[in-house]
């Protein structure tokens, strides 16, 4: 029971941090107000972007995990402080402007409750399912060995032995090192962090992405939003084959590629809709760049999949909207993926390798 309470606390903290990061990113040089679910989603990607920026230099200079944990705590506290100052200023401004309170009729409240039940059902399902998949040896093992040896990605999780050189394909995606930091900080077991806490967090985020899409497509019709979220859950539960993103979301949520398949793609589709609808607005491309970078920080699979998706969408924009600037914006948003790809290829060709010892 105590472990469950700790898990719920950590999950709450994750969402608070994602929201905080999101408010800073969404409020950057704009007075437009983003919805809370969208702010959380963008915050998730921004959070992992910053974590990657902090982790990579520390990893390649062979710092211990405890040093990363300490530095990351300072970074998070600074971001929280910045968000707090911004919120105080905003509150001061809001006091001057009269706020219109929104009220919801009973039927809307019922459908809102139905939306929450759909998310809860999905979350309960992923939290109680157990399926042993060999890949967990790698992904969970990375976290376990990093915490045990107080090291950053220097041990081979498949053998438990020290690596000679960094596995540059996987270690650029620092998502699992974040799990290790959380395990060290809160004294939580890597299996609980990866297979329960993050599984719940990702499932809720995926549902928030469905919610955002439904709200954009059906306005404030709460019934339609609930129905769309329900259908998305149903499709996820009924489209089983070993390879679908739905299966990854349900059984292998602890892997970065499950996040790419289910969360990153859904957020990309939402942003594609926004950009297509309003091609003059550069904001969509700005968010797309953050999602693209965040995706690379989460999973190595994203370095090929995300440029493929953005590339295909850019062609659509060029053909249908005749916006030549699309090439520039798409290029910028794909840059983090291309940089990761470059490092990966240089490593594979034997040109670049980094030793795990001095």
């Amino acid at each position, binding site marked *: 029971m105590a472990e469950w309470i700790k898990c719920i606390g950590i999950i709450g903290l994750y969402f608070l941090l994602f929201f905080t990061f999101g408010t800073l990113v969404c409020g950057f040089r704009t007075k437009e107000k983003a919805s809370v679910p969208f702010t959380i989603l963008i915050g998730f990607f921004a959070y992992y972007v910053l974590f990657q920026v902090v982790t990579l230099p520390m990893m390649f200079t062979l710092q211990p995990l405890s040093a990363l944990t300490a530095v990351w705590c300072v970074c998070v506290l600074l971001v929280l402080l910045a968000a707090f100052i911004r919120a105080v200023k905003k509150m001061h401004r809001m006091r001057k402007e009269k706020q219109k309170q929104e009220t919801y009729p009973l039927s809307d409240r019922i459908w809102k409750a139905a939306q929450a039940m759909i998310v809860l059902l999905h979350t309960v399902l992923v939290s109680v399912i157990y399926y042993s998949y060999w890949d967990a040896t790698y992904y969970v093992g990375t976290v376990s060995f990093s915490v045990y040896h107080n090291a950053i990605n220097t041990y081979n999780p498949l053998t438990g032995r020290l690596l000679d050189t960094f596995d540059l394909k996987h270690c650029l995606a620092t998502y699992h090192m974040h799990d290790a930091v959380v395990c060290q900080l809160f004294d939580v077991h890597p299996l609980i962090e990866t297979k329960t806490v993050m599984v719940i967090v990702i499932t809720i985020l995926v549902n928030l992405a469905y919610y955002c899409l439904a709200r954009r497509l059906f306005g404030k019709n709460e019934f339609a939003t609930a129905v*769309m979220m329900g259908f998305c859950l149903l499709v996820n539960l009924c489209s089983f084959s070993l390879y679908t993103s739905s299966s990854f979301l349900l059984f292998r949520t602890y892997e970065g590629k499950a996040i790419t398949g289910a969360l990153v793609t859904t957020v990309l589709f939402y942003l594609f809709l926004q950009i297509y609808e309003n091609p003059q607005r550069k904001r969509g491309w700005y968010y797309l760049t953050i999602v693209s970078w965040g995706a690379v920080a989460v999973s190595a699979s994203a370095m090929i999949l995300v440029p493929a998706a953005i590339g*295909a969408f850019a062609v659509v924009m060029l053909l249908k909207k005749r916006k030549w600037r699309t090439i520039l914006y798409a290029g910028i948003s794909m840059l983090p993926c291309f940089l990761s790809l470059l490092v990966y290829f240089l490593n594979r060709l034997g040109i670049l390798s980094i030793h795990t010892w001095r």
Partner: protein
Amino acid sequence: MNITIAEEGWRFVLTCIQRYQGEGCFLILFAAALFYTGISSRGVKLCEKEDNLSILSAQKAMAGWTIPYVIVLALTVFNILIMRYVVVLLKLEDEYYRFLWLLPVTVLIGYAATHFTVRWQSRIARTAALAGLTAVIVFTGKTVLARGFTLAENLYKVPDEVIQICEVIHEDSGAENPKVITEFDLAVLVNQYDPSVSLEISYGDVPTLRDVEADRNGQDWDRWLTSRLTVMNVVMDHDFSVPVWDFVAAMDYTDASYLVAQKEAMFDAYYSEARCVPVKSTENYVIYRYYNSVLPMPDE
């Protein structure tokens, strides 16, 4: 997916799509949803509170980008003329199926089904549409229950036995990093729960040892490899035709102090002869303490 362009040739992409779809019909539903999205982009009156124009614009945009986006994907990443070179160059044969994640299957089926449901004004028609579409998705699909999952026994999401085994070994040995040999299914799980257990044949060693076994051709290999190969043949592959003294010599070389094997009378007879003494049993496994041939057995 274990399919290669060399084997499949021009059919590579098609075979990937067929395997991806499995026994369900969700890609057919996706095609239907795409078609429906295209023809229904005129929008419906949905909400009196919101500006309907905004919804109409979003629904038109949905049809506007999804259809050409899927066509562009079909002409590029799902085009075998291009992919047969790209996939080989990037060595993406095993991961190629992930490109299918770029199709907005879940959201588009969800959107089209919702659009079709809410367009009806009468409550009966809406309920009928909702029930009908639910039935279509459920009955044409293959549910995740087909995967045959079990309920998690604990918050760690590993079998309770794994936790028990690690605890017993630590308690009995008192060492920080006890050296252990386990069955393959345990080698997959043990270090996820307890990285302090030193697996002498880890999950990552198994493919290397199998490659060595395949290329052996009677040559004398490194002692590290041959000893582990012998132990792997007995403990993981259950090849009890290996002479006991060969197994003991190999175990001595691995320096392992514990062996965890399935609870079977035949296995027990072999291991008892091979200087293994049971420490404790769990529901499916027996934890043995291995006595190196230079050490006296407890009854000696």
